[in-house]
């Protein structure tokens, strides 16, 4: 989805009043379920429950509990304005959201403050993070199709997992169908995403993903396709992994 690339960057450190107003507007846009980010809002509940359920299975939590992720340290890479960070914080997780876009981080902080949610947002990249930081759960949702070197990126992600930790990755497959649906349809026909959001040759096949993960002693324990049903206007899990898909990886 690459929402993080759709806004220009600004310096996070020195923020003046007009900047605050801009971030506030951006924050509202991000969080408006019928606004510019509507496609992300549509797919968000599905991603959220998939990650939550996988985490509850892995860490033996009751999925019906209102704080099922309490005490778990979670890293959301490419967090945008915090559409996943906020619900996972409410579920008890200690969430660190990182995004290379300073405007996204400013918008995320603003929204979390308004809701009195304590979330550690940082304008940074995994490569720049302290190599000693460790997490129970690392999320890389719709980011690997944008990084320069997928292998190096996943190596870095894997190194940040605590022993027994969990990684969830979602991305786009690379084949003729994903080209047709992921780029032609999403960017040109439906205009869900700005043109140029995705480069098809950067898409990653499940086999390539599995290969990178296994090098880091991580095994894919669950995988699912994510398909859009135009009749119900909703996203559902599917065995069809040709376009969008998610995987859960754990230590072998």
């Amino acid at each position, binding site marked *: 989805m690459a929402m993080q690339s759709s806004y220009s960057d600004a310096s996070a450190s020195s923020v003046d009043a007009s900047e605050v107003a801009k971030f506030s507007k951006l924050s509202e846009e991000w969080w408006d379920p019928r606004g510019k980010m509507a496609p992300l809002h549509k797919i968000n509940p599905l991603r959220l429950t998939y990650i939550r359920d996988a985490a509850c299975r892995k860490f033996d939590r009751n999925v019906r509990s*209102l704080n099922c992720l309490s005490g778990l340290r979670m890293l959301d890479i490419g967090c945008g304005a915090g559409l996943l960070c906020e619900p996972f914080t409410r579920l008890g997780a200690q969430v660190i959201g990182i995004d290379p876009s300073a405007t996204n981080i400013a918008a995320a902080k603003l929204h979390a403050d308004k809701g*009195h949610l304590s979330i550690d947002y940082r304008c940074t990249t995994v490569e720049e993070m302290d190599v000693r930081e460790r997490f129970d759960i690392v999320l890389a949702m719709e980011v690997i199709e944008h990084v320069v070197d997928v292998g190096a990126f996943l190596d870095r992600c894997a190194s940040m997992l605590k022993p027994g930790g969990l990684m969830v990755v979602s991305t786009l497959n690379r084949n003729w169908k994903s080209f047709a649906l992921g780029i032609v349809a999403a960017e040109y026909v439906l205009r869900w995403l700005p043109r140029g959001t995705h480069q098809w040759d950067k898409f990653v096949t499940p086999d390539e993903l599995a290969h990178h993960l296994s090098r880091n002693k991580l095994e894919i324990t669950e995988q699912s396709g994510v398909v859009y049903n135009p009749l119900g206007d909703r996203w559902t899990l599917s065995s069809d992994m040709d376009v969008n898909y998610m995987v859960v990886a754990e230590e072998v």
Partner: protein
Amino acid sequence: MTETPVSTSIYDVAVVGGGPAGLAAALALAETGARTALVARRVPYGDNRTTALLGGSVAFLESLDVWRRCADKAAALTTMRLVDDTGRLIRAPEVKFVCSEIGLETFGYNIENRELMIALEARAAELTNLIRIDDEADTVSPDEMQVQVRTRQGKVLVARLIVGADGRQSLCREAAGISVKRRALEQTALTFNIAHSRPHKNMSTEFHTPAGPCVFVPLPGNRSSVVWVNKPRDAESLMALSDEALSDAAEKQSHSILGRVQVEPGRHTFPLAIEQPAQLAKNRIVLVGEAAHVVPPIGAQGLNLGLRDAGDIADVVRDAGMNGADIGAAPVLARFEQIRRSDISSRTFAIDMANRSLLSDLLPMQVIRAAGMQAMGSIGPLRRLAMREGLSPSWRKS
């Protein structure tokens, strides 16, 4: 990151009001895992009203681990009898509802509210994520992301969602900006309990008088609770009678079906009214119990509705909360409104109609009423439908 003062506590949900509906809501919400505050003075229940727990109410109390604590204080209701005592030209025949006719062992159980309260309080004390604030709410101030409650003694707490269980003069309802439509009914209910010489055989009897219903509902042993609806003036005269004189009056009204009647200490009057708020939820505040509906004491619907409010708000909060959603946000409130609205309106309408049909001096109304009762008395399927619907709405899942 939070900007609230250090002395303030943040809760997922705060229940304001500690009557039976509020306590049940607090228990059900705490059971979901939500960090729950109950803002209510811990005082003994003030009157001697009883509740006929019908339909899913007992199952709900079982799920809260409350029922086993008070089951021995409740009397089973296996037969409900309606008797036309209007003395009018066209009178309805007697109708008897027997629970075995719809395959039930009992319609429900009648229990004194104070006994139910003791059981609810006992369970509340056991839940570690239910924090009791033994004080009254003084101000309730909702904003976009949370609601602040300040108590009489100046304690401040903040919650994402407020459950207003604070009765007819609901502060929460006012704070939410919800208007209420109130219709006084020129009737007053007198409530008291009696001991009697003959057994009730687990049968409640409702005498329909021109001034309103007079109901005798079984309590354990040779005891019953009485709700006697009258013109306000007549209710006050009964209220002023000596125990002996009221015992005689009650025996006369009961046509001595329970034998000799002896009233127990304590009696109360309640002016009848129908109250319907314009909304059940607004501005991070949802209403339960009498804050959400005031109905005349006919057909034992009031607190049964209140317990369904309590169960439903807990379900709605759990469904939203387990997805990490903000449990006080607009979609949660809309869902609660949608679930509760039809149950509450349909009950209120049915009770209002039943009551109006009693009071009517119009001959056509008497005919319709008599015909309706005749039909229910003689047509099995219709009677059984009336019984089932009286217990809980047919469209409910449980």
